[in-house]
């Protein structure tokens, strides 16, 4: 009996040791990227998306299914809970998804460590993309990945509050002074004239209108006099009480402030139309182009691209799928399903015809800036956003000087 137990124990111990060794030595977590990268293609595709909701998931799923039926290659779509983290894990483990959504601020980091394939130049419809979007995903002269769609910022106006304040279509602001005066008129008991997020991703539109920006021609220009002028203008309006940051009126973002009636106007992108339809269907609104500043028209564009992993053995079929997904028909279908604008110029007319009331968003494509996309830029923007929260009492010059020194450290 005793001998039996001992033998069983030895057996168990041996088994544990063996399995532990197996885990350390042969686990997929430690395999070299080169091994899988050199494998022959033709397998099924894994697609990882950071979805905005069921509508987007369903639209991507049906588009991918249609492509699978056409090409005969299996593809599975997964939605990520936390896309940057899941991507990082995939790259570190050497088993990334073949195709995935990729944000421009994450591009530089992944490009630097060789995680993603620069396939943009090989696309058949390369010249159809808006040039600024191509630029958004170009690093060191290499066009990395195809922009999947894009959005710009515009001025969203609550039509009922607008009419109640005695304003007409002719009053839609075209410059900063007019914006300030209509915001003043729209500010009433219980709501402010204009509310938007306390972040560069909204404030940056004013910097663009003043003729400034973060990075111009590879140079950090965050503390330019134009940017100081933009922040000073905002600071004055915030203190006048006709502008407010969304958080200050108890909202998580501009769309919420607008939908709940805490603000008569907001500055948001295309995604607000979906939120308003779903969450605040009773709010009537008009979309207008953002007013001009001293430096002319200005807005910001936001986009994601279809990234392809450098370690993926199926890069050819992945690129084929990207061409399919960025085709005119698919882009218009996506736009109808969840709101963004097609990233290709050939779909512009059809989109405008289908969405005449949203034309202002597409008009912004002409003059939109995009947030800096070099490695480390996301941290710089985050730091700038942290400072912007106290713009009401802060010193614009000092904030921009900090952003400038942070930017200079990463721009080479």
């Amino acid at each position, binding site marked *: 009996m005793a001998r039996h137990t001992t033998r069983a124990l030895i057996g168990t*111990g041996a088994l544990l*040791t063996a399995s532990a060794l197996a885990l350390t030595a042969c686990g997929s977590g430690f395999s070299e990227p080169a091994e899988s990268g050199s494998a022959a293609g033709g397998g099924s595709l894994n697609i990882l998306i950071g979805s905005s909701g069921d509508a987007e998931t369903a639209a991507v799923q049906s588009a991918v299914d249609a492509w699978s039926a056409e090409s005969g290659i299996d593809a599975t779509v997964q939605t990520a809970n936390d896309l940057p983290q899941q991507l990082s894990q995939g*790259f570190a483990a050497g088993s990334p998804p073949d195709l995935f959504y990729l944000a421009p601020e994450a591009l530089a980091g992944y490009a630097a460590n060789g995680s993603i394939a620069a396939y943009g130049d090989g696309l058949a419809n390369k010249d159809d993309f808006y040039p600024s979007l191509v630029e958004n995903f170009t690093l060191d002269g290499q066009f990395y990945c195809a922009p999947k769609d894009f959005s710009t910022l515009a001025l969203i106006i609550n039509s009922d509050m607008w009419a109640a304040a005695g304003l007409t279509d002719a009053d839609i602001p075209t410059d900063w002074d007019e914006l300030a005066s209509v915001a003043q008129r729209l500010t009433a008991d219980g709501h402010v004239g204009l509310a938007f997020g306390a972040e560069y991703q909204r404030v940056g539109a004013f910097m663009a209108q003043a003729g400034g920006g973060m990075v111009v021609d590879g140079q950090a220009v965050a503390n330019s006099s134009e940017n100081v002028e933009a922040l000073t203008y905002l600071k004055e309006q915030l203190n006048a009480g006709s502008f407010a940051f969304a958080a*200050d009126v*108890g909202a998580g973002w501009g769309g919420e402030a607008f939908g709940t009636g805490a603000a008569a106007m907001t500055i948001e992108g295309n995604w607000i139309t979906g939120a308003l339809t779903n969450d605040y269907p009773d709010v009537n609104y008009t979309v207008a182009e953002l007013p001009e500043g001293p430096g002319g028209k200005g807005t910001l564009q936001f986009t994601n691209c279809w990234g392809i992993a450098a370690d993926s053995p199926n890069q050819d079929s992945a690129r084929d799928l990207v061409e399919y997904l960025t085709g005119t028909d698919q882009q218009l279908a996506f736009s109808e399903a969840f709101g963004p604008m097609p990233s290709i110029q050939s779909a512009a007319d059809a989109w405008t015809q289908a969405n005449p009331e949203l034309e202002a968003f597409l008009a912004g494509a002409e003059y939109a800036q995009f947030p800096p996309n070099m490695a480390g830029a996301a941290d710089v923007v985050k730091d700038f956003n*942290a400072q912007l*929260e106290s713009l009401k009492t802060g010193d614009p010059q000092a904030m921009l000087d900090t952003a400038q020194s942070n930017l200079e450290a990463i721009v080479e």
Partner: protein
Amino acid sequence: MTALATAPDAARQGGPRRAGSSGKGIRRGEAAAGWLFTLPVLVILGVFLLVPVLMALWVSFSDWTGRGSPLSPSVGFVGLDNYAEITTGGGLAERDFGTALRNNAWYVLLVVPLQTALSLFLALLVNRAVLRGRGFFRTAFYFPSVTSSVAITVLWLFLFSASGAVNEVLSWVGINGPNWFNEPSGVLHNILGAFGVTSGPAALTGNSFLGLSWWDWLAGPSVAMSAFMLMAVFTTSGTFMLLFLAGLQNIGGDVEEAAMMDGANAWQRFWRVTLPQLKPALFTVLTLGLIGCWQVFDQIYTGTQGGPGKTTVTPAYLSYESAFLSQEWGRGAAIAFVLFVIIVFFTILQRWVLRDRPVSRRRARQYEVHSTPRRKEAAR
């Protein structure tokens, strides 16, 4: 750590055998059996704790970019570069690390004493035999501890929103509550501001440590962080109450009675009799509290992601953010190891403060002097 502690234990078990003459005899093979019994734990801890920790340590000294194995030949050794970047780099990385340390230091400084005091107080309350419905109160106080921190964080976000329940209650007494989770201003700065002090003296604002001026270090926790601190006290004091309660139940009633006979009042009995006997429990609570407070992560991740104004960034969250979101894996690992050193330092410091000291001669004499008249009194 645990794996390291286990090995000497096993060795100690083998000790007496080695002290005995030879390896042959009736106790032969006992050491082998001992190793065999501890092997499963050693293997599991080694594979899932020691190896990953050592790999992370290597990453903190390397330029690994997050692709492929950190042990592959293409990954280079960069010495202390990652550590230098966060401590003397002079850039954003240093300032972020300084901010995270500042936030967490205030958190530890206020949460640890508060939660310890509150849990001890609760334990004393529910330990009283006269209390009706003791079971109910014990359960009620313990309940927050068993609820998931994610669920409590979400609850907290609702309670402390601009128009939430907390501000509603505050408005009953005429206080216009802050927009809790969106208020980056420091509590100490706010208090000073109420007295008209809005900027610090040049000595504080002019000099800096880890990229933050001393004036910023002294800002105190932000309003948003204060809400998290209340939450930490709320959720952990139940657990620690249980530890204190166990300690209290271990104290025999006779000691208490003896103190009563000696004429000690309730206050003296608590400070001189009960509390010293609770020292082991106190040590456990403080150690667990210190470690837990330096590792704040899930509340931040699910709640504010470090906002507003980076005032709720903690080193644990910053480490995650640097590695997974900014692709600075070496920096993330370096932050994690600095945090590890901080935790070990405070644990040792606390152990040293709470060490058993011999009774000083002055104290001892005090007792001798007192004992004579009291004995007379008793004889009378």
